């Protein structure tokens, strides 16, 4: 009965279209937003199922895993992740489909694992059933980031696949361990790259350090990662402290500077470093000061907004907006900025097969929203 109620409520929510007017930096009348689903608990990532267009896998930070249909019907998918640790920023982060998902049905989950005084970021692999009720079987932990830390902050957790079927994962600096982002003997503040089985990719740039996983280093807390297959570019963004959020083009072996070079300062007002630039440190392609807290991004290839083709759509938590960044001769620039009327924190974004943009809000009563062009 409870399940039926949930489905009915979700259906009602989906029918209540155009609830929320948008404000845009340009023309508010251009956009409309529809609430697809309500009551998602701090939803974190959003992936469209290829065999069921407009049906989305949604992770929740407390470990929840759901399938949300375009009408807002919600299927709970039981998921048991080994050693899942939920507190503060810790919990279940992203879900990613294996490159051959349609045949293998394999899913990859990034999540915090361990206990309060000894935890880290892990990756587990599981198999999604083909028929309802959906379930994830054969869940196995395949990667544990080195080393364990105390506290519940800065885990990274975004994943993306490269064309050679290697999985790239962002990792945070654990907040209190910021200097370790420069230490190649562990995985704090690194981007790592691994095979489908969780082994280090053979041609990673530091094969003899920290198990050979490190792809790039000097990151603070990265929650946006996109591979542009047309240009063969890996784009990443990361949270700065007070100021200094960065958009980076990730290249193997490069140092992205945290905490020795940053445009941001500490939350206390103190300088983390006196340097914004240093020799040997890759400069961000774009930086946000003051911080907006970028939480996800997608490379838009849809049909609904042809003027945004090839643009990066970036969601922000503290900034409570979605920005559209396009590359020009002068570098990246924000060409659109969209805020919901309710000023909600935006966690995740994806472009779906209908060309529209789907967003997750960050809240204990998080929503799945559909952003499209206004019909008139």
């Amino acid at each position, binding site marked *: 009965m409870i399940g039926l109620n949930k489905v009915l409520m979700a259906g009602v929510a989906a029918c209540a279209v155009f609830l929320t007017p948008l404000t845009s930096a340009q023309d508010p009348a251009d956009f409309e937003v529809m609430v697809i689903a309500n009551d998602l608990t701090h939803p974190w990532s959003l992936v469209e199922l290829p065999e069921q267009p407009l049906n989305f896998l949604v992770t929740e930070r407390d470990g929840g895993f759901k399938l949300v249909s375009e009408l807002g019907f919600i299927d709970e998918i039981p998921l048991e992740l080994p050693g899942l640790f939920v507190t503060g920023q810790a919990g279940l982060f992203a879900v990613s489909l294996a490159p051959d998902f349609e045949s293998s049905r394999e899913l990859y989950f990034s999540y915090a694992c361990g206990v309060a005084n000894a935890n880290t970021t892990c990756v587990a692999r599981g198999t999604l059933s083909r028929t309802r009720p959906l379930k994830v079987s054969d869940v196995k932990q395949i990667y544990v980031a080195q080393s364990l830390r105390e506290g519940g*902050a800065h885990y990274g957790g975004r994943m993306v696949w490269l064309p050679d079927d290697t999985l790239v994962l962002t990792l945070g600096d654990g907040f209190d361990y910021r200097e370790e982002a420069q230490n190649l003997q562990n995985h704090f503040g690194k981007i790592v790259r691994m095979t489908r089985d969780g082994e280090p990719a053979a041609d990673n740039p530091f094969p003899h350090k920290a198990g050979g996983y490190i792809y790039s280093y000097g990151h603070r807390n990265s929650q946006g990662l996109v591979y542009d297959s047309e240009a063969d570019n890996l784009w990443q963004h990361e949270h700065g402290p007070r100021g200094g959020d960065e958009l980076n083009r990730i290249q193997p072996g490069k140092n992205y500077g945290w905490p*020795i070079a940053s445009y941001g300062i500490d939350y*206390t007002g*103190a*300088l983390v470093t*006196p*340097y914004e630039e240093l020799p040997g440190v890759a400069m961000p392609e774009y930086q946000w000061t003051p911080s907006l807290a970028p939480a996800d991004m997608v490379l838009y290839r849809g049909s609904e907004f042809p003027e945004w083709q090839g643009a990066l759509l970036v969601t922000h938590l503290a900034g409570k907006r979605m920005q559209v960044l396009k590359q020009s001769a002068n570098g990246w620039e924000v060409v659109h900025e969209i805020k919901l009327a309710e000023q909600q924190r935006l966690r995740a974004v994806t472009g779906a097969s209908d060309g529209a943009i789907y967003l997750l809000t960050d809240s204990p009563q998080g929503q799945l929203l559909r952003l499209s062009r206004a019909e008139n």
Partner: protein
Amino acid sequence: MVRMILAFVIAMVAAAIVGSIIQTQFNLAALAELSVPISFDTRISTIIHDLLHFSPMFAVIVAAVMMIALPVAYALARWQQHRERWWFTLAGFIGLLVGFWVVNNLAPMPTLIAATRTWTGLLSMALTGGFAGWLFDRLWRPTPQELAEPVL
């Protein structure tokens, strides 16, 4: 009363300045360990930046701690008057240790002030609380010998 308020304000400002300079040294030392060059000019400009941007926040923490620690010290000093200065110093030191613990439990991040991540940094920063307590009592209730000392 005016003397007490003046003593309190001067002690807080002095502690905020000393604490700011100390935490700058810990932050720069961490960078130097990563082979980042820190010239004398860079050190001075970092100290000045932190005095302007860190010390106001730190002064608020120290002042909030001292509002509790100093009355406690006064009560203890009435019990053992010959150790009054020690009680104020100790109350400031322990008060700031407790203050850091409280702030870290209230703030969303594990450790608010980066310099207090290590025991050495934590104790050094807490010493500024001891300094604040000592200076407050020195200004508020100087001993007859101290009153007899020339100002300059």
